[in-house]
């Protein structure tokens, strides 16, 4: 019988390496693929992140060991337009983006799926820690990974629903320890490779450089402005609101008692509003750019919502739903950050998600209830 051909997205890390190995074991005809997402000559020196040139070399090495073909796809132009430009646009309007979400749904999976189809691949696999089940009639469901510490479902909410039937996530039921162990047993050179922590196109973790290169000089988001309290009192200066994220601690110096945190960024006045820990908590959230992986839920129903990657879902009630969705948390949540993904769950199942538009205050909720 002819083997089923499957394409594996290989970053050069241990997870995707083992994914490829497991699929070979399971009898698939595996084709490895790595996407070259940005210009490496701009980023000389050793790379800390997985998708750098060393990552490509590692993916090639693993593929050679497994005896599978491996191809590198240059998606630099698409990646720049879909991911980097969006990242810059979000920060420049006082929001905090999730570029990995954007990459998965706008570049990585659609591109691999399209190329894979043209290469006779029946499915695409990746090393994400999520589970997927495929029912009859193209009915697929996405779940959190079994290893809750590694669960990456937060980054996949924006995949078009029609893509799910073609996706495989062989690591969904494994934990990281097991993955490394299996990789060692198979002598994969990536077995003990450290985790990638930074955004691939900001290997230093300092995105200000990137914004300065991409934005016009004197862009408002990079200009000095005032740090104010929620009452409007000016308590300091900043060097550009693009440097801030809602919820981040902002020391004021001068021993002003309690720690302060960024509670809002106001691009129109270039003000960064700070407040106490208590003021960081908000009772509700407005989420836009919605994508549903199941039937769309209805108003007044409850769901779980996760508002940052390192977190968990919390119960919330749908106040209204349409092009955007308004939710009231069961308990107020800390640092509702515009631009970040809000992912909706029913138990472990991902039912959809969106981008946080704004926090909703008590008075907003009162007006809706």
């Amino acid at each position, binding site marked *: 019988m002819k083997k089923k051909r499957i394409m594996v997205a290989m970053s050069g890390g241990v997870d995707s390496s083992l994914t490829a190995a497991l699929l070979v074991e399971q009898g698939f005809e595996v*084709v490895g693929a790595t996407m*070259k997402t940005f210009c*490496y000559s701009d980023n000389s020196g050793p790379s800390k992140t997985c998708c750098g*040139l060393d990552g*490509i*070399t590692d993916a*090639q090495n693993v593929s050679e060991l497994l005896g599978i*073909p491996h*191809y*590198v*796809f*240059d998606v*630099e*132009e698409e990646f720049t337009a879909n991911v980097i430009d969006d990242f810059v646009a979000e920060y420049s309007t006082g929001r905090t983006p999730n570029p990995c979400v954007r990459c998965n749904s706008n570049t990585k999976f659609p591109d691999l799926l*399209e*190329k894979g*189809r*043209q*290469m*006779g691949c029946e499915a695409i696999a990746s090393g994400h820690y999520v589970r997927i089940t495929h029912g009859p009639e193209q009915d697929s469901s996405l779940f959190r990974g079994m290893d809750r510490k590694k669960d990456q479902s937060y980054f996949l909410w924006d995949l078009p629903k029609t893509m799910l039937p073609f996706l495989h996530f062989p690591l969904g039921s494994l934990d990281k320890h097991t993955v490394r162990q299996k990789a060692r047993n198979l002598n994969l050179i990536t077995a003990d490779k450290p985790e990638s922590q930074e955004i691939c196109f900001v290997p230093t973790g300092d995105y200000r450089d990137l914004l300065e290169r991409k934005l016009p000089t004197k862009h408002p988001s990079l200009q000095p402005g005032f740090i104010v309290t929620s009452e409007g009192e000016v308590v300091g200066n900043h060097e550009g609101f693009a440097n801030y994220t809602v919820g981040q601690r902002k020391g004021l110096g001068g021993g002003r008692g309690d720690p302060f945190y960024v509670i809002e960024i106001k691009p129109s006045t270039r003000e960064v509003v700070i407040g106490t820990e208590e003021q960081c908590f908000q009772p509700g959230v407005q989420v836009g750019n919605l994508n549903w992986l199941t039937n769309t839920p209805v108003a007044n129903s409850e769901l779980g919502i996760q508002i940052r990657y390192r977190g968990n879902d919390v119960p919330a009630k749908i106040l209204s739903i349409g092009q955007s969705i308004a939710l009231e948390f069961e308990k107020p949540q800390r640092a509702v950050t515009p631009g970040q993904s809000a992912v909706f769950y029913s138990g472990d199942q991902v039912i959809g998600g969106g981008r946080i538009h704004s926090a909703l205050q008590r008075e907003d909720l009162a007006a809706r209830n």
Partner: protein
Amino acid sequence: METIYLDHAASTPIRREVHKVMTRTLFETFGNPSSQHSSGRKAKATLEKSRQKVANALGADRSEIYFVRGGTESNNLAILGKVQLDLQKSEIPRVITCSIEHKAVLDTCANAVKQVGELITLAVSADGNIDLDHLETVLKMQPTIISIMAVNNETGLRLPVKTIAEMTRFYNVPMHTDAVQACGRIPIDLDDMQVDLLSLSGHKICGPKGTGILFVRKGTDLSPMLFGGGQEKGIRPGTQDVAGAVGISKAIELSVDEQENECIRLAQLRDTLEEGLSVGISNLKVYGKEGARAPHILNVGIADLDSDALLANLDMKGISVSSGSACNSGISSKSHVLKAIYNNLENTAIVRFSLGLSTTLQEIQETITTTQSIVLNMKTH
């Protein structure tokens, strides 16, 4: 599955004749050519014999041939070596090149003037011509160096190097040509083609990797870019790779000797491939066809098809081709060469077939059939 290798513009398999003389040299002529004793003298004699061989093949004098470690190094040395002389005289360098050069020239030129200086990149028309009026204006500015390739590595397009060399001579501007793809594919006679500097690579003509030649015409001064024991008259210090020199000189000698007949054969094979593909694939675009082409490259575009997927499909059927210049990790980047000349490259699969000594008619016929069937399959998917 037998591999059909059609990426000879990227690299070539070593020839048996070359392998044979190199192996013998590695074992028997291991001495340092700079040593005074018999082993050294023997190595030196072998090295100089190789130098003479290269000079004979190119119509040059032995004293004008320098052994370097590859095509990239040769291009770098020619361009940076000239720019360095200007910098030493506190003059602001001005470098001229054209838009379809290999990165080994384009990036070198860009870096040469990065701190101080000016780079002028001339446009090239689809038929390989450069606006001579514009060129004249530029030459009157007395630039440091002009570097124009002889044969383009992606399309096989020939550039009018001889004509340009005559103009540069008139204006007394040093001219370099990257002839890496030209050697063995078009006649090179340095007596006739008055360039001052010329670069060759060993592994593109069935010679060893890591070997290259820089021709420096008598009277042309050049600053070294590496420093050390003064080998190669101080232009390229470092103990010479005698076996490499033997290998590249043999490869050059053979490829020049066989050039006339081999080019007729390659052109026929290329035309067969081109016709065969055109019959089965509608709207096949052939890049470089507007001008004179070297016979070993056929670069085609197929509309509404994914380049990466097509190349991968060909590879999985055992056909090794590329979409242009292979750079780091074999990643094919979108071609700056085609972009400089053609519009409407979006959604077009680009494939460069490059033929060589080992290419047979049967391989070409198989390639036609396989490519047609893959394209048909992809189009109906």
